[in-house]
């Protein structure tokens, strides 16, 4: 986490330094009709938006309402990662469209605390459970990008849609049981469990974001961020309670019906491929000053 922040800061410093120089030169570049291929990667942060709560526990007359509600971890604690390839075609100097192929990990966690009291013995028993879910998708975002200027340092905005195909859903539970009388608090980390059938096989959503690209010779270096919003909830009704691994009864865990709001931060490196007028493709070979 700390390393990620240092990297981001370094990247911004580089852009600021180069941006000042580029702005002084007031150069404009012809980048139309170029096909750029590259790699991208980074980290992402997930905020689950609850549409409908679900719990294994059904409150009865003898149990307090509320303990079955989940407490979700804040977005910055739900860090996943992503990486893959992208293809970008520049229709004009400022408008381009692209497609990406990403391995995308969403991570989100929540916890429950349950308490039982023995009125005869005067004891109480507390069970705290933290459930961590990691969803791995092969995602294909399709984006339209608009470059705000055509200088060496180019801020841009982009937006589009994505479809994701679930590769694996993994759930892990950490339990802590404590009793004032007998047991000391003893956290237990259960092994990760494959819970693919609790999640939808296909995800779909919209995304939009902004960033800045630095064009250096043959290389386009970009730093950007996208916000994703899943239109289709990643959790399914079909096997919410009765998944193959019996997660609901083994760990007393059942996923809420949620949508994912995700902040993706990435760095990408791209190079133009194909020829433009038969010459070596290179950013900024044809430019003029204002």
């Amino acid at each position: 986490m700390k390393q990620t922040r240092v990297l981001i800061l370094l990247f911004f410093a580089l852009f600021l330094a180069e941006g000042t120089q580029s702005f002084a030169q007031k150069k404009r570049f012809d980048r139309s009709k170029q096909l750029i291929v590259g790699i991208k990667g980074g980290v992402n942060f997930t905020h689950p938006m609850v549409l409908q709560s679900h719990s294994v526990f059904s409150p009865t007359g003898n149990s307090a309402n509320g303990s079955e509600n989940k407490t979700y971890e804040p977005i910055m604690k739900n860090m996943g990662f992503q990486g893959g390839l992208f293809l970008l075609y520049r229709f004009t100097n400022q408008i381009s469209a692209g497609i990406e192929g990403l391995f995308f990990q969403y991570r989100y966690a929540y916890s429950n605390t349950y308490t039982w009291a023995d009125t005869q013995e005067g004891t109480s028993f507390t069970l705290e459970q933290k459930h961590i879910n990691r969803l791995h998708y092969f995602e294909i975002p399709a984006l339209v990008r608009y470059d705000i200027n055509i200088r060496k340092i180019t801020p841009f905005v982009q937006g589009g849609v994505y479809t994701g195909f679930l590769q694996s859903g993994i759930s892990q539970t950490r339990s802590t049981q404590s009793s004032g009388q007998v047991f000391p608090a003893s956290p237990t980390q259960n092994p990760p469990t494959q819970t693919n059938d609790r999640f939808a096989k296909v995800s779909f959503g919209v995304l939009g974001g902004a960033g800045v690209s630095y064009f250096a010779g043959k290389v386009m270096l970009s730093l950007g961020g996208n916000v994703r919003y899943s239109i289709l909830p990643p959790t399914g009704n079909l096997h919410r309670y009765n998944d193959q691994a019996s997660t609901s009864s083994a760990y007393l865990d059942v996923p809420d019906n949620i949508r994912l709001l995700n902040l993706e931060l990435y760095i990408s490196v791209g190079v133009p491929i194909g020829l433009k007028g038969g010459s070596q493709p290179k950013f900024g070979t044809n430019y003029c000053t204002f």
Partner: protein
Amino acid sequence: MMKNNIQITLILLLLSGGFFGCKKDQLPKGMDPGYFKVYDDQAANNRYKTLDLQETADGGALLLASLNDTRIYLLKVDKQGEYMASQELGNVHRNALPTLLQLNGRFYIGCMDEIGLFTQILSVDESTCQTNMVAEFTDLLYPLAISPIEGDNALLLSYDRIGYKSQLSKISLSGSVEWTLEIPVNQDAEALVVQHLNGSGTRFPFYTGLWNGKYVVNCFSNYSFSFLVMKGGTNLPDAIFNGSQYASGTSACFPLSSGSAAITRFSFGKSYLIPSFDQPFGVVDLTDNMGGIFIEEAEPNSEFKLGNITVDEINYLGFAYNTQNGRVALGFLDGSGQLKARKYFGAGTNPFKIGQFRQTKDKGLLVAGTLSVAGAFPRPALFKLNEKELFEILDLKYE
């Protein structure tokens, strides 16, 4: 122009992937999702044991459970398995018989009067779980099992503490006893009965039932725990299979449409399934000679529940039992006695034990049992599998 078209095509493909791909993750139209629910009680000293369930007219379920071994607890849940009402019966009514009777569309339970030890029948309001006494049988002490037969009648097993006899009676909700068959135990088994009732000793799988017009009863008989086939009107059984004293016997019997019955038995801790057992006549034998398939993973002297499960218009014999690693296994046998599938319920640190399973009107399946939350607090729990999930268990394609 060409490249524009390619881009547009790609985007359309993405969109269609999202919308069509998600279809197979969805429930079929009109089908309710399955569920798994635990009905908690924050009083740590309360221990529940689910005994039986019945589907109610609204698609929900009514559960019968014992609380701290002898008290009676009734629970009503809705179609989604959410708690609606519950009732813990007063001190007078104790030791619910492990069958929730459904007679003429109404629900009843049998239980024991705490002081007089005699049999009581209570009606149960399926919405509120409120009970009303409908009949008392002061001559039938220590009720142990009950099952519905035709009309408003039921078969009741009780124990005569003075005459050292098991008694099989045909009773009616009006409070009359049509007949009582007496089965001599030949020794004082009251201590065993009391330990069975208050949970301090062996819990015997007492049951009664109908099989091809004859009555079956699993009870104490002739110094042992025995399986008997009887006719009404005579104390002489058609067939009797004695256990090895009280260490073996049968644990469940389910008559099949073929005329035979599926029977499970236990013997010194081991469990066996007999998928098809012909109705015996004129037989005196031991339950240990009844044969059957050894169920390795069943816990010692596991409870067994048998019933019919219809999936894709095919009838399967369902048999559920507790495994040694704290789960419930539900097996599906086809008409030829071949195991077609097995589904496990419960896992991990929350052991689950079978109460009962019953098929629902929407072709799903309810499996009720007792889940020990955190391995410490036994609570009523209920699984619902919808029709699609049953298809998946049997590896059938749901259209």
